[in-house]
């Protein structure tokens, strides 16, 4: 136990020292990894129970656009705008989730319905181009250093915010993992009918975890928008983001707490590393290599990197006997 505490103290000290020693470019990457890690963790909160949502881009887009729009057009501080964005995302999750769970839309069908939801939100943002700037993107009005506007030119502030968010995300993950709902959700993911017959309120349990997941994703989107100070429908919502979330979480390991974060670390550093390595010599080659690696990872490590490491350490690094 004391060794564990010491390790935790060292980890915290290292995290606190990071802004002093790391150059700005890597700070930027680190913040992105933490923010995306938070979003991926939010997805895995429901993804690990077999409710594979391909529409988390919708929640992220709503969470990112609502505070930015309110700030630009009405001068509403993000401190109010972000909760409003989260509320809207939760309403969206309920509107889609309730009929889905009521009418037993599961598996591929659920994935497709959420995929359509993601597209609906993205295309609505593009269609309302008079307000949102459409595909050209949207830039929140910059006011420099301001707590009121939640805008900080220095990366340190966002590093601390992202770190807090990430820890918060992990805390929620553990809370769901340890809570009473966990057994119920496991039972539901095995067999819904059987779960219902032993007295589990299937709809309520599923809705609860969906709402938690959607709210956290919207929060992640909002902070991502505040950090990047530029929103584009393609980069905060729609199918591209939804799939990015799912792939990264699966590569890292959906069933473990740190899996999605490892996924974020791997996908973002791989993407950036390949981009830097190939440069302008082979435009597109980086994406090709990235895609091939993702396919290989998903085929050969279906439980993800962290999942595989856990399996391996449990079995003493020996492969499973047939």
């Amino acid at each position, binding site marked *: 136990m004391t060794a564990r505490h010491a390790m935790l103290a060292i980890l915290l000290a290292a995290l606190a020292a990071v802004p002093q020693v790391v150059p700005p470019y890597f700070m930027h990457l680190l913040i992105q990894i933490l923010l995306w890690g938070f979003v991926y963790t939010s997805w895995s909160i429901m993804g690990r129970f077999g409710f594979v949502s391909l529409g988390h881009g919708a929640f992220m887009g709503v969470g990112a656009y609502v505070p930015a729009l309110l700030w630009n057009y009405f001068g509403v501080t993000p401190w109010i705008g972000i909760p409003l964005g989260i509320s809207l995302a939760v309403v969206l999750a309920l509107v889609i989730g309730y009929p889905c769970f009521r*009418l037993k839309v599961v598996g591929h069908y659920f994935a497709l319905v959420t995929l359509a939801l993601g597209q609906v939100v993205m295309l*609505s943002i593009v269609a309302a181009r008079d307000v949102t700037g459409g595909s050209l993107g949207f830039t929140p009005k910059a006011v420099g250093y301001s707590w009121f506007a939640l805008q900080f030119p220095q990366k340190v502030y966002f590093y601390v915010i992202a770190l807090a968010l990430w820890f918060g995300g992990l805390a929620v993950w553990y809370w769901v993992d340890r809570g009473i709902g966990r057994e119920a959700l496991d039972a539901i993911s095995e067999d819904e009918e059987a779960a219902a017959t032993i007295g589990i309120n299937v709809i309520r349990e599923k809705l609860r975890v969906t709402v938690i997941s959607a709210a956290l994703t919207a929060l992640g989107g909002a902070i991502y928008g505040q950090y990047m100070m530029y929103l584009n429908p393609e980069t905060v919502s729609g199918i591209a983001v939804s799939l990015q979330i799912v792939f990264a979480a699966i590569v890292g390991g959906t069933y473990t707490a740190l899996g999605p974060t490892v996924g974020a670390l791997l996908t973002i550093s791989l993407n950036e590393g390949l981009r830097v390595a190939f440069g302008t010599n082979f435009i597109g080659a980086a994406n090709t290599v990235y895609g091939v690696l993702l396919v290989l990872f998903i085929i050969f490590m279906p439980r993800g990197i962290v999942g595989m490491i856990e399996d391996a350490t449990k079995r003493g690094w020996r492969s499973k006997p047939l």
Partner: protein
Amino acid sequence: MGVDQRHIYLVTSAIGGALGGLAACLLILQYDVHPFIGNTFGPLIFMICVLGGLGDMIGGFVAAFLMSQIIAIGGYYFSTELSYVFAFTFFIVLMFVRPHGVLSR
């Protein structure tokens, strides 16, 4: 029963890929080619298949007709993006009403 599963899967996915390629060749008569052309059709195709009911060919035709009409008419009266919004919303609603395809009972 002596069915070679791997063989059947291989052949069916090969036929599927070949037909997809043929469909793309035919689409090119009307659309222009660019690297992201797959992205514009991919999700829509999957949705139409599910809307028609997986494995139901007639249902697939009906679903394709419905979706393309919504997109075409919506695009004429409103805008292209809004027409897709209508189509996807229609898909979501129909998934709730008829989860096993438009022609299912």
